[in-house]
């Protein structure tokens, strides 16, 4: 869609301002469409989930999808903003508890989901405003941790949240009148929510705002000189991160049916951080890989050993010191090497008619 169509269609001030804002937060028009891949993810994911018969396996794949969304949300703050956040557990927990506490209100599942996201975004906004009062990354990591722990103490101590035992019996509810208690319906619901979030994040990642966030991450001083509002961009990252973490938390509550205060403890933030770092911050699919590896690695290690922390720590250190952009970076460079190697062999064999990139004449 050409860019000027949308701006010509709107005439009055506030609407035009909103349209301009929307354009800043979505992709530029000259880029590849994001909707078809997202649709493929939804359909393929839902069909694959429906093909699983073992309930334990199915449940672990649900966790992979939820943690993938959670890791994608954390990647906005860690990868795009370059801020080490230890507050993510609380946004996730906020989304989950919002769903759990409103379960008695008989709201449709999609409304609960959006409320969970909104609560996560609101807490993200609070954390962002408070943490970005300092410019130091060390202080920001500590501040997010402190705020999240205050939240944890509240979740743990205040009776409404059920304390250590948490809240149980959270219903899955229904979407547009379709009950989510059937496995097939829930598979589609989960994958559609994930696909929509994926689509939104792809559009966001290509937007002017995300590019400005990367600029502010790489060199805050230069970004400021170029007229970017660095603090504002950081807070924006916290809000986006909080929104998607809240959505992931809401999905978690709907999937598990049970939620306990340990979800809000700071080690949950550590967990999602491991997923993001191991998977890789440079690509959107990096955190998804990280989430899948973490979830299944966890299942495997829990079955075989009591010492998974050792392996997690070693894996995290290895990735950080050897390939700080994670497995995504390793895979991308490997693919690039393979492609260039194949091209060279192709040329050397004399079968190629053109040298170099065939698209360039």
């Amino acid at each position, binding site marked *: 869609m050409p860019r000027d169509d949308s701006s010509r269609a709107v005439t009055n001030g506030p609407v035009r301002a909103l349209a301009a804002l929307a354009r800043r937060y979505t992709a530029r028009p000259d880029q590849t469409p994001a909707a078809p891949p997202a649709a493929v993810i939804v359909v393929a994911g839902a069909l694959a989930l429906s093909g699983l018969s073992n309930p334990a396996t199915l449940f672990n794949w649900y966790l992979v999808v939820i943690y993938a969304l959670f890791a994608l949300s954390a990647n906005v703050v860690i990868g795009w903003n370059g801020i080490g956040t230890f507050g993510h557990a609380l946004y996730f927990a906020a989304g989950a508890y919002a769903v759990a506490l409103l379960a008695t209100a008989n709201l449709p599942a999609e409304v609960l989901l959006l409320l969970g996201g909104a609560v996560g975004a609101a807490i993200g906004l609070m954390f962002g405003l*408070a943490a970005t009062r300092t410019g130091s990354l*060390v*202080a920001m990591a500590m501040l997010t941790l402190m*705020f999240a722990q205050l939240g944890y103490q509240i979740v743990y101590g205040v009776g409404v949240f059920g304390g250590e035992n948490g809240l149980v019996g959270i219903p899955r509810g229904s979407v547009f009148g379709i009950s989510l208690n059937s496995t097939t319906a829930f598979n589609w619901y989960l994958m559609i929510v994930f696909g929509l979030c994926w689509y939104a994040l792809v559009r966001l990642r290509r937007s002017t705002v995300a590019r400005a966030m990367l600029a502010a991450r790489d060199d805050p001083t230069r970004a400021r000189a170029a007229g970017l509002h660095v603090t504002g961009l950081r807070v924006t990252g916290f809000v986006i991160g909080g929104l998607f973490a809240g959505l992931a938390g809401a999905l978690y509550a709907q999937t598990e049916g049970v939620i306990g205060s340990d979800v809000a403890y700071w080690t949950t933030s550590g967990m999602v951080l491991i997923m993001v770092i191991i998977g890789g911050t440079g690509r959107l699919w990096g955190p998804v890989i990280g989430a899948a590896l973490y979830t299944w690695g966890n299942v495997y290690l829990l079955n075989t050993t009591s010492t998974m922390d*050792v392996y997690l720590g070693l894996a*995290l250190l290895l990735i950080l*010191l050897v390939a*700080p952009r994670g497995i995504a970076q390793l895979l991308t460079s490997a693919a690039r090497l393979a492609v260039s190697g194949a091209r060279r062999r192709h040329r050397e064999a004399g079968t190629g008619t053109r040298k170099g990139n065939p698209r360039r004449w």
Partner: protein
Amino acid sequence: MNHFISTLVAGFAEAMPFFLVGSGLALTLGVMDILNFAHGVYFMIGAYVLHALLGGAAVNLVFFLLACVGAGLATAVIGAVSERTVLRLTYRKEPLIGILATYGLFLLLQGLVIVVWGAAPFSQNQSFATRGIVTIAGVNVARSDILNAGVGLVVGAALYVLIRHSPFGTKVRAVAEDREMASALGVATERVSMAAFFIGTSLAALAGGLLAPQVSIDQTLGASWVLYAFIVVVVGGLGSIGGSFVAAVILGETDSICVSYLPSVEPYILYIVVVVLLLVRPRGLMGSLRHAEG
């Protein structure tokens, strides 16, 4: 009134382990600009080593203190090794990688503790001299509180002399102020870093040994004590040892007063103090602007 005074004394005694752990973290943070998530694990290892040395048995005070020192030194070796092997590799990289690497170290060391000592909790008996309560001028004071307060004050004084009035302390402060300039002036910055890390770790482990009779020795100690260390350092100001003393006393007294008079607020009070203080003064009580603006 006597109740209030004994509350204050208990608060001060409670503050001293906070101070030991926090000042250790402040030292490493100041010298190396590294926020060490593994710091709480050193506390935990200190408690485990003390239990291993004494086998959980009650001993007399001298042996207990010797075991505390032994736990501190043994753990400090682990700390120095982890600095040399892992953290040194991150110094030239982005600060975010350094922070995350210490989290990896946290997981690794915590996992190793479970490998070595198992997942079941241990308990350590009080030494004979620190059991029960003593009444001084009508004020009830727990004997273990006297020990904690005494050790905290002695170590604090020693740390003050070491950092402010010794050649080594001058080097530490020089490296904390400006690593490159200190290096250009002939300070062996790497050796100073490792020594600072050794001392910082031993302080955390000493606190762990000291508190071992009062806590359940299990693998959750690391995650909770790194938070206490962070709270102290954030309130006191990043990298300020004097600030961590003041912060620890404020936090210990606040907590103790809440335990006595406002028990319902007690779980939140430390974090409330932190959050309020940070909103008013983001760089902490005695923090330098360098660490706040970084």
